[in-house]
């Protein structure tokens, strides 16, 4: 029986070249994984182009348009940054949690709670209306991050204590967060029956480049706000924590092998709670900076799904905090200028293709493919 089996395999049809796929026997070079991210993006853009072409459009023109309207001048570049700021912060939030294989998909809800926490300072009010700007900024940061952290703490605690799956709990918490905000804008802080709060007074706004427009004309009209600084500082701190600190080492250890971490005396429960809280705080900071830097009032629909886009950004950046900044700018451009091309279709499609291509590209991280001609063997 085995003899015939063997002959069958030996007489199989052969191509003039052979494609070898073997499991990788070494660590892939450092540049390999970022390169896959780039390829995923290019691939997604090509698919997008194909769809535009099939729809009778002109892909290259559309892309040139996107590029012009997102990077073409200082003005639009500034708008791109405004879009990128919340993405950076939620991208960081997701990267941190994912490093520990903790699937926090609740950045959306944590974002809403951060926005709520910041608004509360003005609307409750916690501070008098004429309090100094710096005091407003500091209290709003603290409050926004605390509320985000609280929203991360709940699923973190449930996971640590009762082993509740965090994917389900964080997702569900998103809906609660949105309804929580709705309650306040419909009922408590509603202004004249509209589903929004009153506009915050100016000393509760984050500083923007345009504030300097009077003295430096170059900055006139630029809406990029202080949130950019928060995001960059947060990225650097997070990078430092993950790469250099003892806590970062614990997070990597748990992410790779929880049983080994336990054996090394690292408390998994404590870290699940802490990481969920910090992740929530970062997403909360995103909500805070969006409310105080851009919207200037509490209202519904403050996020077009930033929390979910943050998941894609984190993967595309390979969970590297510094790369999150760059990837977010790309996505900011895609969201901003993509809307110029088409309100939702193509940009969303491109995001979707990116994530699929990324997941598929993992195969090349694990296997090596080489093509050789038969003769050479």
């Amino acid at each position: 029986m085995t003899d015939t089996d063997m002959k069958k395999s030996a007489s199989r049809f052969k191509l003039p070249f052979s494609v070898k796929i073997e499991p990788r026997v070494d660590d892939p070079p450092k540049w390999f994984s970022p390169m896959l991210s780039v390829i995923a993006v290019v691939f997604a853009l090509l698919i997008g182009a194909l769809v535009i072409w099939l729809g009778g459009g002109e892909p290259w023109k559309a892309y040139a348009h996107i590029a012009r309207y997102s990077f073409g001048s200082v003005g639009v570049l500034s708008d791109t940054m405004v879009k990128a700021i919340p993405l950076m912060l939620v991208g960081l939030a997701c990267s941190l949690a994912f490093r520990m294989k903790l699937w926090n998909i609740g950045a959306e809800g944590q974002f809403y709670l951060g926005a709520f926490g910041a608004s509360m300072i003005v609307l409750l009010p916690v501070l008098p209306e004429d309090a100094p700007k710096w005091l407003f900024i500091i209290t709003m940061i603290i409050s926004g991050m605390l509320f985000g952290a609280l929203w991360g703490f709940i699923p973190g605690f449930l996971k640590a204590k009762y082993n509740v799956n965090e994917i389900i709990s964080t997702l569900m918490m998103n809906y609660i967060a949105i309804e929580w905000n709705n309650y306040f804008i419909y009922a408590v802080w509603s202004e004249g029956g509209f589903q929004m709060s009153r506009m915050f007074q100016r000393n509760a706004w984050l500083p923007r480049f345009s504030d300097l427009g009077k003295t430096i004309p170059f900055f006139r009209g630029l809406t990029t706000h202080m949130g950019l600084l928060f995001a960059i500082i947060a990225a650097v701190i997070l990078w430092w924590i993950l790469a250099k600190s003892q806590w970062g080492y614990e997070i990597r250890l748990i992410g790779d092998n929880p049983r080994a971490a336990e054996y090394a005396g690292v408390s998994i429960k404590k870290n699940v709670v802490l990481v969920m809280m910090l992740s929530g705080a970062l997403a909360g900071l995103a909500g805070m900076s969006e409310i105080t830097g851009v919207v200037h009032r509490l209202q519904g629909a403050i996020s077009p799904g930033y929390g979910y886009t943050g998941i894609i950004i984190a993967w595309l950046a390979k969970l590297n905090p510094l790369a999150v900044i760059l990837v977010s700018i790309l996505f900011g451009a895609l969201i901003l200028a993509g809307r110029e091309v088409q309100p939702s279709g193509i940009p969303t499609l491109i995001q979707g293709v990116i994530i699929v291509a990324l997941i598929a590209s993992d195969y090349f991280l694990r296997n090596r493919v080489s093509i050789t001609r038969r003769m050479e063997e």
Partner: protein
Amino acid sequence: MNQEKLSTETEIVVRMSGVSKRFPGVLANDQVDFDLRKGEVHALLGENGAGKSTLMNVLAGMYRADGGTITVHDQLVDFGSPREAIEAGIGMVHQHFMLVPSQSVTENILLGLDEPRFRMHLPQYNRKIEQMAEQYGLHVDPAARIWQLTVGEQQRVEILKMLYRGADVLIMDEPTAVLAPSEIDELFNTLRSMTAQGKSIVFISHKLHEVMDISDRVTVLQKGAVTSSGVPTADVTRADLARMMVGREVVFRIDKKDVEIGDVVLSVEGLKADNEKGLPALRGVDLNVHAGEIVGLAGVAGNGQSELSETLAGLREALDGKVMVHGEDVTNKSVKSGIRQGISLVPADRTLVGTAPNLSVTDNVIMKNYDQSPIGHGWMVNSTEAGNYATELKDDYDIMVPTIDTSVRLLSGGNLQKVILAREISSDPKLMIAVQPTRGLDVGAIEGVQKLLLEQRESGAAILLISEELEELLSLSDRIYVIYEGEIMGEVLDGDIDKIGQMMTGTRLEQIDTQGDA
């Protein structure tokens, strides 16, 4: 025993010639010639990292060779996957089983095959597999779920899987490393019945007496190259084999210095704990270990040894009883406080518990002291210090690895074990709990580890050595406890093998003594 039947004109089933395989930084196989005859057991010997697993992975289609040719039944082959290899009749049983725990034996065996197509006629296949099991003496219930089986039974399922797929060459990579002595005997009976029915077997092991016992011929690898090729086992002695492997004489006797026995370091009273399934695993264990003493714990695998080691290290909850270290009550204290107190543990499972596979060698050796000076520095990990430490351990313990930044999943089994030992011993433990510390190590490395343990003893550490290998326990230990079903049956001071054997099967020391008196 079937050597008489084998003569030189017996059919050659597999011939590998000039096979080379290079990994980044190492030439794992260097122009290796290897042949396998029909109906023989061919042992493959060599130090850790000599390239045994690599060579057999090439034959089984896991890796492609960089050079050389392989013929099976005189046909040139070039396997691109394990599937192609098994189609040509070559199957490999890896050290880590690849079974689905929640499925039955039959389901696991059928997994990935083209038949049954749509409807599973399980009873019919159960019968077929039962017959096959009968034929080779592989006793296992086809309807049982994998998680219910012992390690030995799971191994039989892996073998059946290969036989069912029509393997007539079976490669076994360190099959005995995970087995209890009685299971080893059964495995050997199976192997003999398989060769009697015309199958050929490649057998990898570090245990020379097993090689002497089961194999017909031996091939020895050293640093990737063949040094002795297909030597009939009957023509050599165990000492010859050791010399062929290591390239020098290996002393099997170890000289143990007399050491002043110090204070009690570990004392355990009435310790009770459950296993994963919530069943009692320890039913009141009493024992103690003094400074400067190696105390052995003998017993058949699964009688509570691993639970005991985990409870002592703080990894498992003690339900009752007391654990004292240096007179301080440490029952149910955290793992970290245990580490701080100088308790070190060499765990039984090096991949599941002992290491983080995708992290580097450096990250793996600092697991216990990343938060202690000089590697821990304030909130930071001092990466220079960590790197120096890793390099030092790599050199001191002779860990074969291209760089300290390599992920440990790429290390050979023995080298991985050395990473763990290096980490645990270099922390200068006061109490060392070593579970099967020499599992998977070659004779040279075993000698090294045993020396290290004795050095620890001389420097005043207390060592609890948990092992299923009596020989090792007898040669290293000052005293030996025997554990059976979670209870200590008694303590032996003079290394009386008969007594230990009786206690391992559940007779208490008092019962033996009274029998002796009567």
